[in-house]
């Protein structure tokens, strides 16, 4: 039978506030275990939470950027469970009345736009981390690091609107892009500042009722998300095709074996006993606060993409790629503002620059080739100082040495030869050395033109203007 996958994502995002959600401890990543703790986040007897307003501000920004309705009154709730990384024995979260509901995000898959609805966004505190002694040469003990305890999180819950792993990946990428534009999170999946759980089910094509879902956790990259979803779709399809029934359960993605495995039932048999947090009053958000926040939002990816396509006349695809990352988009605009042709700039950024960034594993802000270097080089192509082919060499030199294009061209003597007399003389020498090929060409083997162009380029170390070489060759060969 043919099945249709139904996918929803629950995404946890660490907000990049300076201090924790309910105390004044720093949120910096990577310090000594338990160095960033105080009686409050340690859950000592008698402590009380005091809300960090910045967390609410960032949640509201996110809510508005995803077109959610911000609640004037939301409530905190306790989620109760025992685990050593949770010192109070409960997590302060939001349950019945979250900060925002009913939003949406536009995604594009295979050139087709689609709307993914957002069910809700709520705020909560993160838990700490357990470090098992095996890694410390002490297998008999587990250690608790509570630096992360109380770091602010928002959980963004989508509707089950995605129908393929590509859509799930596109949704998560778009969400990441929006969050980075807003400056509310660094969204580092490897460091865990963005974590996605997927609810996956399948149903016969044409059926309206959802199938039984599994919840898949532990995917710490976009690639793993896509793989895990695909694995689940295949696994459930096989079960149904064999006449079985999918069990509702939580499964963990195992990235070394590329499969999902059920969590031990003991770990998921939780009754969280949610109830309103009596230590915090209901959270009131005024309309003025929402309106001011709305005014302060930056241009978001969709708007920027449309503007890039309209104003710069670049293809939709280019606009999409360039605007995924706010800094990449800014880089592009800087290059174009220096007079470069938008399409040429886009081509260079999307191929050469992005290759360099990928090789080096760095972001655009650390690109060895600055916008000024790239635009200067593009201008040198435009005014004929160098050829497009030589430009590739110039680019490599700029990348490795950090020198500007003028300097590279000067030092390496890469200025294009546009002197027709000089080129003509070179061609004559090549004709003299290759009489057979000249005869062949004249006898009709016109493809040999490529051979002559190659020889000229070889002799001039690629510096001859290719257009002139072609023109003069044709004149001389008649």
């Amino acid at each position: 039978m043919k099945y249709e996958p139904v996918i929803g994502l629950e995404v946890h995002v660490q907000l990049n506030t300076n201090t924790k959600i309910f105390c004044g401890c720093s949120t910096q990543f990577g310090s000594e275990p338990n160095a960033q703790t105080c009686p409050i986040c340690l859950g000592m007897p008698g402590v009380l939470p005091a809300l960090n307003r910045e967390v609410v501000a960032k949640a509201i920004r996110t809510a508005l950027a995803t077109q959610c309705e911000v609640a004037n009154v939301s409530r905190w709730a306790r989620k109760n469970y025992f685990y050593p990384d949770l010192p109070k024995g409960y997590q302060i979260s939001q349950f019945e009345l979250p900060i925002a509901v009913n939003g949406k995000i536009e995604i594009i898959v295979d050139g087709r736009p689609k709307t993914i609805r957002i069910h809700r966004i709520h705020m909560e505190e993160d838990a700490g981390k357990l470090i098992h002694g095996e890694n410390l040469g002490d297998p008999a003990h587990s250690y608790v690091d509570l630096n992360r305890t109380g770091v602010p999180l928002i959980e963004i819950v989508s509707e089950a609107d995605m129908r393929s792993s590509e859509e799930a990946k596109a949704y998560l990428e778009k969400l990441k892009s929006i969050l980075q534009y807003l400056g509310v999170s660094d969204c580092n999946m490897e460091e865990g500042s963005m974590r996605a759980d997927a609810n996956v089910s399948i149903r016969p094509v044409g059926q309206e009722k959802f199938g039984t879902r599994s919840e898949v956790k532990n995917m710490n990259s976009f690639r793993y998300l896509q793989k895990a979803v695909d694995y689940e779709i295949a696994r459930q399809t096989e079960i149904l095709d064999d006449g079985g029934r999918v069990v509702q359960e939580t499964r963990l993605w195992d990235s070394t074996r590329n499969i999902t495995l059920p969590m031990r039932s003991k770990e998921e048999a939780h009754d969280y006993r949610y109830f309103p947090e009596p230590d915090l009053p209901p959270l009131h958000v005024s309309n003025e606060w929402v309106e001011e926040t709305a005014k302060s939002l930056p241009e978001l990816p969709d708007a920027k993409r449309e503007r890039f396509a309209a104003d710069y006349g670049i293809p939709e695809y280019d606009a999409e790629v360039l605007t995924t990352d706010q800094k990449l988009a800014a880089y592009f605009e800087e290059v174009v503002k220096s007079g470069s042709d938008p399409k040429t700039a886009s081509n260079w950024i999307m191929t050469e620059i992005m290759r360099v960034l990928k090789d080096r594993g760095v972001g655009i802000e650390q690109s060895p080739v600055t916008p000024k270097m790239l635009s200067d080089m593009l201008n040198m192509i435009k005014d004929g100082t160098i050829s497009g082919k030589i430009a590739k060499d110039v680019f490599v030199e700029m990348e490795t040495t950090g020198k500007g294009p003028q300097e590279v061209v000067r030092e390496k003597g890469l200025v294009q030869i546009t002197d027709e007399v000089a080129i003509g003389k070179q061609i004559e020498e090549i004709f003299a050395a290759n009489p057979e090929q000249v005869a062949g060409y004249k006898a009709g083997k016109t493809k040999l033109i490529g051979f002559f162009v190659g020889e000229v380029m070889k002799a001039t170390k690629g510096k001859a203007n290719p257009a002139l070489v072609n023109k003069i060759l044709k004149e001389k060969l008649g």
Partner: protein
Amino acid sequence: MTDYSKETVASLARKLANGEASSVEIVKSSIERIKKVDPQVRAFLRVEENDALESAVMADKRLASGERGPLLGVPLAIKDNIVVENRITTCASRILENFKAPYSATVIKKLRAAGAVILGKTNMDEFAMGSSTENSAYGPTRNPWDTKAVPGGSSGGSAAAVAAGYCPASLGSDTGGSIRQPASLCGVVGLKPTYGRVSRFGLVAFASSLDQIGPFGRTVEDAALLMNAIGGYDPMDSTSVNMPLPDFSDSLKKDIKGLVVGLPKEYFIEGIDPEVQKVVRDAADRLAKEGARIEEISLPHTEYAISVYYVLATAEASSNLERYDGVRYGYRSKNGADLSSMYTHTRTEGFGAEVKRRIMLGTYALSSGYYDAYYLKAQKVRTLIVNDFKDAFKKCRIILTPTAPTPAFDIGEKANNPLQMYLSDIFTISTNLAGVPGISIPGGFSSGGRPIGVQMMAGHFDEDSLFAAAAAYERLRDTSIAHRSPNL
């Protein structure tokens, strides 16, 4: 050595101010009396003698430099669920045996700033769960008026410390009557302020939406002086209310002519001890003679208060007490072979029977499938009780009731009957549910010589009226009351 056991905060402050006494003398006298008398009463879990003397020396220096203040140099006792930095706080539980708090409660910081001397920590029902101070892992406290009797609870140690003359005042906490009921049973004044008036930061939580720290004293004036020191907004407690704190000493002399005092008919029911009833009726008569207008009022949902309380308080407690898991601090059982059994053994061995009973009740009330029937229903009825009080305070300024249905009962009398014990708080629980302030003032004695208190309540943040009415009653009551003291 001079005997300061019958002094008040105000009288000690006068003696300290005019140089009649030094803080060190007073504190030494307190400590001596505790050493002599407390083996009979057992109000204290720990006396911090060195800390107290050090604070007294400091206070004397401040006095010598000309500083004056109503608490400067005055010894106080603190219930053992209010944390003091680097000192042990057990909540009378085995699970916090030897637990040293890494910080001080806001009220402790305020008291220290005012120059008060903290003598030590007093006994209580474990985690403030109880009405007799019998549920302490460290043994019961006895009533100074009759050591066969309970002092009430859960703040029995703090009430007994004042009644026994160790210090003129102390701090307790009140979740369902835990200040007022022991005040009544020990013949002292005890105030539960409006919810949100005093910071709870550093008060080990029992039921967060009901808990409130408050003072015990020998006089209404002393209770007012302590409230002046500990009250006010605290950014560390999001449930504390940001509004100005009046000087409650000013409330004490206010005239009560024309003050409308309501007697809720639901509080004068069958089964109430006739001697208790008589004291309250007599109080109404005396207030009326002074010009107060006594009116019968109704708090129609009173009969549901205990049920509502035991759902909500236990639900919150089941969550608040989850942190005692043996992982980071406090008691950890050595019997656990893995994480889950470590939790089970630690909590089984660390908590007493009443605490476990309430954790189970509360866990049940919050469980999926039962939440709506218990927790949610109880919240709705709580709203009805809140509205009862709002309506009542449209008709009167003060509500007058008994504090407890009986004078102090004997140790062991109700220990095996939790429901009977829960009824000890029948007149005090509603104020916690409504969040309004309540005070218990000594009003008389039973034929057996055990104290009987009178309770007054007022509207939200109207401690001003409460102190005015309480102080007026204190002036009007049988003058012999103030002159009686326990025979220890």
